[in-house]
Structures are given as structure tokens and as C-alpha cells.
């Protein structure tokens, strides 16, 4: 069973993403901040991380950079409020496996994860 870690400070988002993905047979864990995400990754193996870019404590970009540095093979998907310009990278210097624009529906995230994993 593929394991996914969700990092988002918004409870509502965690709630539905968790249910949308677990009902499709993925094992999904969720945390609400970057530090917790890094700690979790140290304890347990994951195949993919879905990370919100806009979080109050550690910015999503920073979290993603650190994950990529430690786990080069990790599939990383970013959640963003808006795409300002499709041609500028969301996280400079990091090749992402995909991104989701808020507010994405459950089919969007399921299809994306299907493709990525």
C-alpha cells in the first residue's frame, strides 16, 4: 500500500483530502506544519508528500526543499492558492511531480495521485 503524507495547516482541507485518498486505498497521514512533517518523514517511510505552500510557520517552499534534499526520490506535490505565472517554478530549484490549485476537487487530487504513484 502506497503511503502519502499531507502537510496543510487548514483542518478542513486535511479532513477531506484524507478521506478522499484513504477511500481509494492509499494510506494517508496528515500533519499541520512543516516541522511535524519533517519529523514524521524521519520516523516512517512515505512514497509521496502533498504540501501546502502557504503555511504560517515554515513556508511550504522551505519544507519541500528540505524534503527533497533528504529524500531525493520522494514524489512531491505542492498545493498553491493560485498560479501567478505558469512558467515560473512554484518552488525554485525543485522539480515537482505535480501541483494542485486551491480549491481542487476530490477527483482532481485522486487523478493526480493515481498518475504520480
Amino acid at each position, binding site marked *: 500500500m502506497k503511503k502519502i503524507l499531507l502537510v496543510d495547516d487548514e483542518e478542513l482541507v486535511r*479532513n*477531506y483530502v484524507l*478521506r*478522499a485518498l484513504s477511500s481509494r486505498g492509499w494510506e494517508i497521514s496528515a500533519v499541520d506544519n512543516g516541522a511535524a512533517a519533517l519529523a514524521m518523514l524521519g520516523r516512517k517511510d512515505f512514497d509521496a508528500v502533498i504540501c501546502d505552500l502557504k503555511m504560517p510557520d515554515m513556508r511550504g517552499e522551505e519544507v519541500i526543499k528540505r524534503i527533497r534534499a533528504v529524500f531525493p526520490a520522494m514524489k512531491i506535490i505542492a498545493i498553491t*492558492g*493560485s498560479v501567478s505565472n505558469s512558467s515560473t517554478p512554484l518552488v525554485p530549484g525543485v522539480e515537482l511531480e505535480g501541483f494542485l490549485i486551491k*480549491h481542487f*476537487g476530490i*477527483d482532481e487530487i485522486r487523478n493526480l495521485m493515481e498518475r504520480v504513484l
Partner: protein
Amino acid sequence: MTNKARILVVDDEPQIAEMISVALQAHGYAVSVAYDGEQGVKRAGEEKFDLAIMDIQMPGMDGITALGEMKKIDPEIEVIIATGHGTMGTAIQSMRKGAFDYLHKPFEIKELLSVVGKALEKRKFNDITKAIFSTIKPEELLRVTIDSVTRILKAEESLLVLPDKDGRLRVAISEGLEEEAHLNSRLALCERMMGRLDGGAKSVILVDEPAKDKTFADLPGIGEIKCALFLPLMEENRTAGLININRTQEGEYFTEDDLQRAKIFGSLVNLALRNSNLYRQLQETQSQLIQAEKMSALGQLAGGLAHEINNPLSGILGLTQLVLENLPPASQNYTDLKDIEKAVFRCKKIIVSLLSFARQEKTHMEPVSINETIEETLTLCARQMELKSVRIARQFAQGLPMVNGDSQQLMQVFLNLFTNARDAMPEGGELTVETRLLKDPSGREMIMAAVSDTGTGIKPEILDSVFDPFFTTKPVGKGTGLGLSVCLGIINKHNGAIKARSRPGGGSTFTISLPV
């Protein structure tokens, strides 16, 4: 001012006061008498007089002091000083204090009447000047102008003609001309006169019996005009309009004095019109500034708001869809949740447009296909065009080279042009988008993209302003006046050019050229 001028006579000798007042009354003036300086000043404070005739040597307050006091109470009153011991010294002193003129005693009634007439004339002019310059709203100004000129020049009829928005001369306002036929014949007369002026800067033109003048002889309905005066209204050194003042009474020709008055009046009106125009421009600038302020405040607000609303909306959407998965599609709950889902999509659309409005982007250059960019933009607004019955005609050249550009920004440019085109065709029409490969004069290859509409067109006088920031012809709240200036900015960053061509009623074409 009423027709009957009000005059105050101040003299300590009752016989002289009596003589003056009888003479003036005989000529139709309303006269009051005071017998010393204090009394005179008191009367001037109680009642409004147009003119005072004041003796200089009086017991108690002398004439010169009384003159000063009177002017303090009523700065507009004209004062004629009468002096029996005619030294030049007192005369000069009184003039310095603001007297209109002075009379040496003993004076003849004829002399008195002449000075009184001149003083009242000056008073009348002052009143009119005041009226004209205190009126700043264009419509009222025209009324005041035409009323005043008819009165000053003792004419039976007058009219003011100005071009309408299509450049055709129209009667803006008239006096003493009620019948349509009369108005039309006068308008024709003015048109002919405007043509004859041809920009030549004359301040006043007199035509005696225009029906006998070969320039106007063929015009019908002007036979009753005995003499006609024309005052050109100038705007930036060209004749923008005309005031026509006519006398229709036999033998009542305009005198040299009348011409002089007309000339002064003409320059007054021209100044006042310019003031009024400046005032209008000021008001427009103000509302544009307010709009710009509103925009920037809205932009900041929108950015923050959109991000805040995004999270809860994501939750609503996701949870709604999760519940939907577990409901039979035939149930009422399913239908209701589908409505909620639709509502979220609507909110999403609003937020996306708010964000794009609030965003300040950096340019990101890459090879871009202009045809593709236009096609994508057309897809975005196809529905809107359909709703407004606008047909889209594509005339794309095939095999065009790529240009170096920011496709997002170029899309913004085209979206703007398409939206403007749509707004210019409220009744529907055709939007033509053409692309071509051209060579500029130096032989460089350029891609030209032209966006044409079949709409209302742009007036020639504002065609140069359409790219100015904050310039908009749309009502407040409809357009920001920034669309085309943003387009210009983007195209400039691409080392390209954007030009507007239009004629009223014949649609507009915006042409963009970008270097390959």
C-alpha cells in the same frame, strides 16, 4: 439689475439735491436723497444703490470720507463726486478712493446725464462680469451669457451656436427666438459665417442687413434682420462656436460703442468658457483619481481576501464532493449538494479574477506563438461574445515564426482588446482578428496582429488619449481606464508597438506589431 437704475444723491444744499434728482427722475432713474455724509452712508447700508452722486464739501463727514465708507459697505457701488471748489487735488484724492468720475460745480444737466450713463454702463458690465465668472457650470453659463449679451447690446434676438459631438453646428441656447423656422435660419446664417471666418481671429464681425450681403443673400428667412453681430468663441486658437446678436428694428444699427462693448463682452465670455472647461476637466481628473485610488485599495484587499477565502472554500468543495459520492443521485440531498458544488465553482471563478487583478507580475520571456495565444484568449471569452451576439472572424496567417514574449501578458493584452471590442458593440457585430508577417521600414520581420470591431468607433479628438492611464469612456465602475495603458506597457516591454485607428460609426482597429 432692474431696468430702473437706483441712484443716491448726497448733497447738503437741498436746492442742488432737488435739481439733480428731478433731472435724473425725468430720465427714468429711481432717485433717493441724503443731506450729509453720515446719512448717505447710512442709506447705502440700508438699500442697494447702483450709483451715488456725492458732494465733496459737506458739514460733518465730508464727501471723500463718505465715499470710502460707502465702498466698504458696498464695493460695487459707483460714486460720482461733485465738487464746487474744484481743485485737482480733491478730484485725484476721490478717484484714488474709487470714485468713478468727478463733476465740477456748477455742471450742466447734460454733463451730469452723460457721466451717470457711463457710470451705470460700467456698473452693468461689472454685474455681468460677476454673473459670468461666478457661473461655472457650462449649461448655466450659456444661459447667463446669452441673457447678458442681449441686454448689453439691446438686441431683439441672440443665439449661441456650438458644434455637437459629431461636429455639426447646433443652437446651444437662444433668446427672443421661439419659432423653429427662425432658429433654423439663424443657424444657417451662423454656419455660413463660421465658414467665412475659417479660423481667422476676429473678435467681432458686423453685418448690416445680411439679406443684402452677397455672402448670405441666398439664405431664406433672414430678411427681418436689420443688423447682425457675430462674436467668435475661440478654443485653442480655433473658432469653436459663435454668438450671433441681431437687431430687427428699422434704423437700429449697432454703433461704434456697441461694437466696443461686444468686443469686451466677447473676450469675457471666452475667458469664462475656458474657466468652465478647466473646471470640467478638473472634475473629470478628480473622478479618475478617485477611481484609481479605489482600484489600488481594491487590489490589495482582493489579494488578501482571496487567499483567506481559498482554504475554507477548498474544504467546502472537497467535503461536498465526498458526501456526494455516498448519496444516490436521485435524492434531494444529492441535488442540493450539487448546487453547493456549483456555487463553490462560481466563487472560485470570482477569486481567480480578483487575484489576477491584484497581481503585479514580472515578465517571463519565452518563444510564443501569437496565433495560439490569440486562440486561447478567444476560448476564454467565446461565451461572452456569444451572449452579446458578437461573431468572431479569424484571419490567421499560417506558419508564423514565434515571437519572444510572455504568453500570459500577451493574453492579457488580447483579452483587453476583445473586451473593449465587445463593449463597443452593445448591439452585437463582428470581431475580426487578423495576423500577418510584415517587414518594418528597416527590413526587420514583425508579426502584426489586428483586432477590429464593427462598433461605435472612437471620436477623433480622443483617439490620441485612449492609451493614457485612467482614460476611460466607460461609466464609473465599468472601466478602470487602465486596460489600454497596461496593454501599451506590456507591448512596450516586448519592444513592440500598438496603434489605434477608428472613425465614428465605422468601428475601431487596434494593431499590435511585435518583433520576431
